[in-house]
């Protein structure tokens, strides 16, 4: 035989050799993965779920924000700047400002706009109030958008699909409708529509239909484009505007600094009663209100990925154990330690890519469902979800990155396997990471997390990200502590398992101590999943309890009387004269803005100013104070003095306010300083609420109309019956809608449940991934103990007993994992509530849900038993003769 020396004449470090080696390792890695298809599938599934959830939440959040921005951007058209009142949002101002604006150098065009809401007369009786995360909104109102028809098309793009544009006159009673809206309401070209106005009803002739784009996007297409003066008449805003859109000279529009200078010039000329904005700022105000909800969704999706990372680490650690001898053999054959790492990481990369690709596909599907839920909860129509290329690339990178990172430690440990391992007749169990002293490191990590969360006063802007990192550090630390508890836990559990599974149950429980490192890792994975459920459940339970308490206490009265048109106080007197009515209190809502100067912190917030009548409000409803020593009667007396506010806890937190501090608001009369008379719990409008007197609202914001009357009925009167009666009596003449307080409270609590349901789904995803980890562990245990199982069978153990032994082992894991999960879940709940406070500004009391503890523990047990079914079956199928010959 010719003696060929295969390795002659080829230098060690040629690219060719390296590429060839990598190619060989790739083949080996594929073979390794395909030789254990179930485990490979389970691991890839873990990655897939984590990536899918992250991508779905990211796409949904982006879609929501993009939709909102798109609406505002489209409505603004090519306007470079926008002028509004600096007082209340949507507040009108004199049209005398227009010539002043037009005289400013650098302005090419200044277009007046008047906008307000009304109803189609045919829908006045169907009018109602809906609630969402962003606040309340009317269910079927029509936005009147009054423009200068001769010039508006220079700024906004009207995509006319039928008929003609508005005639040039400012006072014609012509209207443009969005085609979809017209079809939905069965309104056609050339016909008249009747809308409610300040003086009654008015007819408008439909002269054209536009596409649902540009200004047609406003109010989800329920917008009527009419001439300016017509709008002023219908809305009773003669000589007033709600905004001026400014088109800058071309050379200024393209130069950001010049545009900024023009903005400053306009603001200086117009003075404190006005604000000059970039059109995009309007969208940012709305998106800010949703930010906390979206941040929460993103956080929990990241947690799902974290649990997936644990599963991967778990799987690769077990894989290294299984292949200890093979890895030792590879070293005997001349594979270097670095090449061993590369081999493991190539396997991880293949899994990461496959799992991520599957996750991207599943994530896109998941995003469709998630976006529908989020759209309902946030009252935002999310346009067709964009599948961003960069988002896909990021998802792939995240999935791959998480997999490789999780496999890094097992890969590193694989390199330390001595070639002598190849010569052993059994595989030695791989120890825990950091050995038996891991609990010291784990305790240190937990202490660090505790200090970061509770003791170290970080700056507010970094508190939330540090809080999130601390949660991960806490869970990681807990996982390192788990191993030291396995031994003591088993001593208790063996008699529990004996009780349920007989003698073999004791054997099963004892098995958890044998591969204690692997058991600990699986317990840790289950712990994370259960802790997330407990944490989320406790958080949502606490939130719902507080919301319900607030709803029952602060949303007082029996009936709410509302109208799409402004009501007068006199109508309240008429209601009071009704024999069923015991008390009536008027309320007016107005969006206002904090002053740019004079407050702690400068934020571009809008705050809901709830104007109440201190004399009558206290007889019908009350407030829930942060400081329980305060009472409503005293607070109302303070409000009656004027210049006082009851601020919500969110506002107090954001502006660092306490009793007696000052909150400065922009008003028609300039900046006015209001004294804080109390801090109340209020969940409306995402918590950005202040309560003041209607007298102040009239004095400083010029608002005298009434948005709502709260009515208290005399004893013995049924709210539903009286609601219908009042609506029938006044509905046609005054277009009122009457809703019972009970129905409104139900709406609010239903919304809360809907909003939190999404978090529960994310929490469950963590548990599903943990279940995959349990299956992996048990399959590995069964594989390793083939000879032992064969021996037990030869001693007379039946297949059923073998299966029960595996179920008992898994049950022990489930019990320990559940206990740890419950303990850390309670801790996590406090952390989540802190996070809610930091992100959303709400102060929520911690309420422990007893049923959630039991349910979560039951979930842990159920997961452990379900996950053990397949491994138990596998173990029961072991053939005795083959097993005892197993190496």
């Amino acid at each position, binding site marked *: *035989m*010719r*003696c*060929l*020396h*295969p*390795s002659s004449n*080829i230098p*060690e470090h040629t690219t*060719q*050799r*390296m*590429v*060839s*080696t990598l190619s*060989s390792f790739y*083949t*080996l890695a594929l*073979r*390794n993965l*395909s*030789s254990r298809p179930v485990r490979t599938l389970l691991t890839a599934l873990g990655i897939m779920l984590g990536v899918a959830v992250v991508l779905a939440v990211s796409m949904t959040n982006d879609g929501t924000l993009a939709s909102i921005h798109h609406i505002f951007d489209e409505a603004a058209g090519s306007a470079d700047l926008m002028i509004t009142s600096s007082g209340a949002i949507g507040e009108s101002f004199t049209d005398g400002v227009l010539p002043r604006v037009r005289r400013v150098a650098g302005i090419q065009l200044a277009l007046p706009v008047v906008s307000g809401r009304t109803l189609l007369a045919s829908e006045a009786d169907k009018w109602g109030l809906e609630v969402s995360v962003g606040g309340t909104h009317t269910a079927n109102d029509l936005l009147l958008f009054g423009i200068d028809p001769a010039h508006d098309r220079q700024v906004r793009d009207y995509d006319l699909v039928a008929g003609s544009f508005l005639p040039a006159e400012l006072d014609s009673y012509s209207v443009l409708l969005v085609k979809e809206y017209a079809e939905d309401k069965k309104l056609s070209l050339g016909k008249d529509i009747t809308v409610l106005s300040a003086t009654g009803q008015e007819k408008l002739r439909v002269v054209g239909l536009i596409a649902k784009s540009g200004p047609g996007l406003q109010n989800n297409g329920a917008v009527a484009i009419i001439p300016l003066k017509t709008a002023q008449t219908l809305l009773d805003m003669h000589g007033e505007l709600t905004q001026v859109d400014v088109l800058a000279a071309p050379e200024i529009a393209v130069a950001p600094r010049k545009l900024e200078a023009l903005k400053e010039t306009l603001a200086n000329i117009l003075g404190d009663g006005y604000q000059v904005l970039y059109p995009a700022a309007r969208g940012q105000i709305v998106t800010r209100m949703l930010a906390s909800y979206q941040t929460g969704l993103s956080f929990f999706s990241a947690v799902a990925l974290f649990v997936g990372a644990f599963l991967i680490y778990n799987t690769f650690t077990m894989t290294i154990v299984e292949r200890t*001898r*093979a890895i030792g*053999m*590879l*070293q*005997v*054959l*001349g*594979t*270097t*330690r*670095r*090449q061993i790492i590369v081999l493991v990481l190539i396997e991880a990369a293949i899994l990461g890519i496959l799992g991520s690709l599957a996750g991207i596909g599943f994530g896109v599907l998941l995003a469709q469902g998630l976006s529908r839920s989020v759209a309902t909860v946030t009252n935002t129509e999310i346009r067709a979800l964009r599948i961003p290329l960069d988002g896909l690339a990021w998802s792939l990178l995240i999935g791959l990155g998480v997999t490789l990172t999780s496999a890094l430690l097992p890969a590193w440990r694989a390199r330390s396997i*001595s*070639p*002598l391992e*190849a*010569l052993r*007749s059994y595989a030695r169990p791989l120890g825990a990471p950091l050995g038996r002293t891991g609990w010291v490191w784990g305790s240190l990590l937990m202490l660090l997390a505790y200090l970061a969360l509770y003791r170290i006063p970080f700056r507010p802007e970094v508190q939330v990200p540090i809080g999130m990192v601390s949660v991960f550090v806490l869970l990681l630390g807990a996982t390192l502590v788990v191993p030291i508890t396995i031994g003591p836990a088993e001593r208790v559990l063996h008699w529990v398992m004996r009780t349920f599974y007989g003698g073999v149950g004791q054997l099963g429980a004892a098995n958890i101590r044998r591969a204690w490192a692997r058991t600990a890792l699986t317990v840790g994975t289950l712990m994370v999943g259960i802790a997330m459920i407990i944490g989320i459940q406790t958080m949502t339970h606490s939130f719902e309890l507080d919301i319900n308490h607030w709803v029952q206490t602060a949303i007082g009265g029996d009936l709410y009387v509302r109208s799409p048109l402004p009501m007068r106080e006199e109508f309240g007197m008429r209601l009071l004269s009704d024999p069923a009515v015991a008390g009536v209190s008027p309320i007016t809502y107005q969006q206002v803005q904090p002053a740019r100067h004079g407050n702690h912190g400068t934020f571009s917030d809008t705050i809901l100013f709830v104007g109440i009548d201190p004399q009558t409000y206290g007889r019908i409803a009350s407030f829930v104070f942060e400081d329980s020593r305060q009472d409503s009667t005293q607070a109302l007396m303070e409000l009656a003095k004027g210049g006082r506010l009851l601020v919500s806890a969110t506002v107090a937190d954001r502006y660092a306010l306490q009793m007696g501090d000052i909150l400065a608001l922009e008003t028609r009369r300039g900046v006015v300083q209001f004294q804080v008379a109390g801090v109340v719990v209020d969940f409306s409008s995402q918590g950005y609420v202040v309560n003041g007197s209607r007298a102040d609202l009239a004095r400083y914001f010029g608002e005298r109309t009434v948005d709502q009357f709260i009515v208290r009925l005399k004893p013995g009167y049924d709210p539903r019956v009286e609601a219908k009666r009042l609506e029938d009596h006044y509905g046609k003449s005054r277009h009122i809608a009457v809703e019972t307080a009970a129905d409104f409270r139900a709406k609010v609590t239903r919304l809360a449940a809907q909003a939190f349901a999404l978090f529960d789904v994310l929490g469950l995803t963590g548990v599903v991934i943990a279940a995959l980890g349990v299956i992996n562990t048990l399959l590995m245990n069964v594989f390793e103990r083939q000879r032992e199982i064969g021996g037990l069978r030869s001693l007379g153990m039946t297949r059923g007993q073998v299966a029960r032994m595996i179920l008992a082992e898994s049950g022990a894991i489930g019990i320990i994992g559940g206990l740890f999960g419950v303990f850390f879940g309670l801790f996590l709940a406090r952390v989540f509530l802190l996070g809610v406070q930091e992100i959303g500004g709400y102060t929520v009391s911690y309420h422990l849900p007893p049923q959630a503890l039991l349910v979560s523990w039951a979930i842990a047990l159920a997961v452990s038993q379900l996950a053990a079914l397949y491994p138990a079956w596998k173990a029961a199928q072991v053939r005795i003769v083959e097993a005892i010959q197993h*190496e």
Partner: protein
Amino acid sequence: MTILEARRVSKQYRMGEVTVHALHEVDFTVAKGEFVAIMGPSGSGKSTLLHLLGGLDSVSDGEITLAGHRLTQLNDNQVTLVRRRNIGFIFQFFNLLPMLSAEENIALPLLIDGQNPNAHRERIDHLLQLVGLVDRRHHKPDQLSGGEQQRVAIARALVTNPAIVLADEPTGNLDSKTGEEILHLLRWSCDELHQTIVMVTHDARAASFADRVVFLMDGRVVGELNTTGDRNADIRAIQRRLRESEEHAMLTPEQQHS
């Protein structure tokens, strides 16, 4: 020509608080093309010696030189590379990779070395023919008998044309007939291919296939025997020497010196 030399090699292990002296100042040489068997009872240090000769473990003291490479002066990576190209291993439990076929297991050292097995197709085919497994080339280890697996392991050990083949109880997991076949194969590779072989065994019959037998006892070389080629006579001589070595080991140090 000496292909392998171990000089005053010692190896100690710590087991808890106790230090175990597995080898004590062992001198051992192997000439090119020689077939040497190392014999001794359990705990004599024969496997330890084999591990050290193969660079699988490091010496506590002494020197090992293989094919011109001073193993004791190389780092872990360098030893690995020496092992990759100069040593073939055969183990008692075969140690084939379960997801690779017989052919792929044979080609594995080439793959690890970054070479394209297709470029060495002729050699691999020849080795398959040599070990009589041409028609089993695509079978996985769990589809092969113990003897067939060991033959695959032998072919794998020879594929890189190593300077030396180290065999650790190659027949320990086989029946006598199959074991005999394996020993004949090893003998043949030595005679026809001039392959240098060091084999650890506790079986006198297996040792009789070697050119020379080295006896280890309590970590020391206590004797050597050159075989004659007369199998039965060699077996008897080996068994006698083994017995004498064991009896000698049972004497006190004073008795041993006297």
